[in-house]
């Protein structure tokens, strides 16, 4: 059947374009303007050209924060995606267990970021926190305020606790959409549990996994509130991710120009990595 090409349909997209302009494009334009200027306040700006970008690209502080962010995102994806798939595969598909599991899974997602940070900040303390006290009582020296490794473990476990549910729910939605006929055919063929997962469940979950990986990557790469509440970027700078560094620069030091330059580079990296993820996964899907 021939498609009807009617370019007037573009006018229907106009309201969305206006909304996006106000929520994203205008702030982005402002950031671009700030990134090539300097200000001492009072809404007065002076041309700085590419100075802030040069400073940023030569700054160890920026590359170290970037490295921490990439490592954090990689660890998060490596834990949350397999764990989410595993939990989704083991959740009940019918009966009273379904709503119970869904509600339990949704609970962490309903808690605001700053509250999650506060919960884990108290939970991990080795004087009054259940986790910190118990771990120390077991003879393991754990103190996320002093030890960078402990701080990283705390931030990672907190993120896994908060966001694995999202991967679970998305995978579960993919799994329940698989018709029973697929499983019946696999049973007749004598397929193993692994074969059912590899050739039926995983391909059917691929689209939702793409969304899960994209969302979790972008979220973890832009993480701010939770680590800021728990560790404040410390000890030292060990958990200072790009967004924490950015806020310190923009609001703490009021260096709007350098902060804007950093925001733009940060934005471009997220855009590039998201595009790569999206392209690789959608094309893998199309090839199949």
């Amino acid at each position, binding site marked *: 059947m021939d498609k009807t090409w009617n370019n007037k349909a573009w006018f229907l997209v106009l309201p969305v374009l206006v909304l996006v302009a106000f929520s994203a494009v205008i702030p982005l334009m402002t950031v671009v*303007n700030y990134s*090539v200027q300097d200000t001492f306040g009072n*809404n007065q700006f002076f*041309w700085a050209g*590419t100075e802030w970008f*040069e400073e940023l690209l030569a700054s160890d502080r920026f590359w170290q924060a970037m490295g921490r962010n990439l490592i954090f995102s990689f660890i998060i994806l490596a834990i949350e995606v397999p764990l989410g798939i595993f939990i989704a595969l083991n959740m009940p598909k019918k009966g009273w267990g379904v709503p119970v599991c869904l509600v339990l899974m949704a609970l962490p997602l309903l808690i605001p970021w700053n509250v999650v940070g506060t919960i884990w900040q108290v939970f991990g303390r080795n004087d009054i926190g259940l986790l910190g006290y118990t771990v120390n009582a077991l003879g393991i020296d754990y103190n996320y305020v002093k030890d960078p490794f402990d701080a990283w473990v705390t931030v990672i476990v907190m993120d896994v606790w908060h966001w694995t549910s999202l991967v679970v729910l998305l995978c579960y939605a993919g799994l329940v959409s698989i018709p029973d006929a697929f499983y019946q055919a696999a049973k007749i063929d004598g397929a193993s549990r692994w074969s059912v997962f590899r050739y039926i469940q995983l391909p059917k979950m691929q689209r939702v996994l793409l969304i899960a990986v994209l969302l979790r990557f972008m979220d973890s790469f832009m993480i701010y509130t939770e680590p800021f509440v728990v560790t404040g970027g410390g000890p030292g700078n060990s958990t200072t991710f790009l967004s924490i560094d950015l806020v310190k620069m923009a609001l703490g030091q009021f260096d709007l120009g350098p902060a804007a330059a950093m925001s733009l580079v940060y934005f471009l990296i997220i855009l590039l990595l998201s595009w790569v993820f999206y392209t690789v996964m959608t*094309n893998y899907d199309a090839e199949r």
Partner: protein
Amino acid sequence: MAGTHRWQTALAVVVVVFMIAAGLLVSAVPLKDGARDWFAPLAAGGWMAWTFPTAAFFLTILALLSLMAVWEYASPGGHPRVGILRFETTRGDRLFVSLLGSAFIHLAWLGLVGPGLWWALALSVVYAIAVFRYV
């Protein structure tokens, strides 16, 4: 799919609007000692801290998007094809890859060579032509 023959009018409208906007932008550049101060704020203390270079940059992006829209109007469908990256891209994808790549070329030039971005711009144009031709 039949293309439309009215795209020339659309193209003329885009070019005329771009020229008028560029003219207005140039006329808005403030004067300093009788000469245009290209890097001064367009409206001192004004909203969004606009300057001529940043406004010209966004005007160019807008012009590119408008030209892409005219291209789509003239030849609908986005011209999908499989290029050297071995996956299907449309014209919009190729523009996105060109712009994103150009941004990184400029950043790499700043980081590795230094200021003076005209060569980076030239390299970006060559890169964009290559993307539109081969990707």
